[in-house]
């Protein structure tokens, strides 16, 4: 009984860690530009699938990981530069269509370059399961949780302790005031996309040995990341991480105890309930309309 509980919690924390990374990516971009980047799931795919390709081309794994992350960041920068920046003044619906268009575009490119096959990576440190109080844990899950936690700590440090991070926070708070204080808000937009792409790529790479990757695996992951960000309150980094973990655990528990066919539905039902009760997410501030 308690073993299966632990088992589900571990599974939930593993997928929750990925949702947290994607959700954090959503929040960072949202803060910098009030854009919801529906192409966030594609960053995961590009990171994962280019690592697979580089590895197959004979590049050693650590170097492949670094290169794949850089490729994804370049894609993120290009997206910000060529699709988001020219449409700065468009309204919410237009921006949603642009990023959805970008995700279809990127999915098409991935499909063209890598085909429709499902790819995988070897686990980083073997396939021997560990035993944790009667539950089994794959070493790769530890990688996922460890790398995600490390990234989240680094991001928190970046926003709280570096000048660049504080400039990004200032822009999120009030873009005009930030510009008057000498913050280059264009640079903030670009770096927010690069940073989100980095989070997506690294998340995609560590999770590929568990979930595999194909050209369309980004759709559901992107939606889950968006859900995590909304659950925690858009633009709230800690909220997104908490939202991701809650989502992962709820999903794993409902798959285990209720019905695996309905696990995705249950996750969305919970989000709806939260939104109805707290229209700005669990940790979001109450929005006030300006007339």
């Amino acid at each position, binding site marked *: 009984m308690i073993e299966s509980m632990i088992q589900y919690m571990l599974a939930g924390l593993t997928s929750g860690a990925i949702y947290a990374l994607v959700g954090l990516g959503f929040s960072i971009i949202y803060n910098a530009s009030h854009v919801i980047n529906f192409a966030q799931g594609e960053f995961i795919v590009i990171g994962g699938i280019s690592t697979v390709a580089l590895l197959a081309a004979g590049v050693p794994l650590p170097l492949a990981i670094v290169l794949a992350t850089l490729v994804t960041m370049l894609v993120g920068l290009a997206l910000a530069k060529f699709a988001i920046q020219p449409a700065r003044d468009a309204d919410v619906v237009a*921006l949603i*269509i642009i990023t959805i268009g970008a*995700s279809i575009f990127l*999915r098409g490119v991935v499909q063209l370059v890598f085909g429709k096959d499902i790819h995988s990576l070897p686990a980083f440190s073997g396939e021997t399961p560990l035993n944790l109080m009667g539950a089994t844990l794959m070493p790769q899950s530890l990688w996922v949780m460890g790398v995600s936690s490390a990234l989240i700590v680094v991001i928190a440090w970046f926003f709280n302790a570096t000048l660049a991070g504080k400039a990004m926070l200032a822009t999120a708070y009030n873009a005009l005031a930030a510009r008057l204080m000498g913050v280059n808000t264009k640079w903030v937009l670009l770096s927010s996309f690069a940073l989100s792409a980095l989070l997506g790529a690294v998340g995609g790479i560590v999770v590929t040995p568990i979930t595999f990757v194909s050209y369309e695996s980004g759709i559901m992951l992107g939606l889950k990341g968006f859900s995590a960000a*909304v659950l925690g309150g*858009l633009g709230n980094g800690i909220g997104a991480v908490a939202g991701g973990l809650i989502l992962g655990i709820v999903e794993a528990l409902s798959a285990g105890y209720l019905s695996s066919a309905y696990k995705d*539905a249950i996750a969305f039902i919970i989000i709806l309930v939260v939104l109805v009760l707290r*229209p700005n997410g669990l940790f979001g501030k109450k929005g006030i309309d300006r007339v």
Partner: protein
Amino acid sequence: MNAILQRHRGLIILAALIALLPLALRNDYHYDVAINAGLNAIVVVGLNLLIGYAGQISLGHAAFFGLGAYASAILTSTYGWPVLGAMAMGTVIVGILAYVIARPILRLKGHYLAMATLGIGVIISIVLNTEAQVTGGPDGMSAAPFTILGYTFASEQSWYWLVGGSLLLAVWLASNLIDSPIGRALRALHGAEVGARVVGIDTTSYKVLIFVVSAMFASFAGSLFAHHTPTVTPSILGFTKSVEFVVMAVFGGMASTMGSVLGAVIMTLLPNALAAFEDFEPIILGGIMMGTMIFMPKGLVPTIAKKLRRKEAP
């Protein structure tokens, strides 16, 4: 007489186009594409009331289309209902469901509303996918032939006129709604929601009303679709389909009924036209979506109309 012509100019042009189009349709495949374009147009005309006029987004409208389709398929083939009865029942069920959903979620704004509608779409799609005893699961199911008063719509030509007529009806209903006090209230709401509330417009009720109406449009089109297509499968109500509907509405032109029709027609033709470039299809589609929104964020018809007006009155 002139006033009537003036008021219904768009509707008359559309009727003329629908009447003339068969001259250009060479085979059943052409008819099939035209029929699907018409069905999409009905959904998009309704959805545009919500997006373009009320300023509320829905990323879950394919679910209402799908529910209408499944209601017709299940009621006619499993329970032997007459087609019109099944269609009416489906539309009413979807209307009630949309009403129940709309009350709480239309208080949400912007991205939160997008998330909520998306979530509802995903939930409905998962339910229909999973309850295989009723819906046939991923394999889908088919509806009975479309028979009214002993006449069965079997040929593509007969379907063309059926869908063409339905589209005209939908456009007529939508333009009447837009010209009514409801339409004016909606535009006030879109312009400044707080302002509209201050002058005494019950914004929530109007938003709910328009959400229900647009869901019923989608359900109606879904019912027709179910009888026309060989099998109704869950793929018709996924997230991708919802996005397609939104793209059609925005691409053609927000707050423009004719834009909705044009957007639906172009976006239905596009995959067929791009079939020759199979592998490049998503790249081109994504590129068009981004390009339109960057260079003409108001959509095709309003942008062109503005250009023309500028020429007329320099």
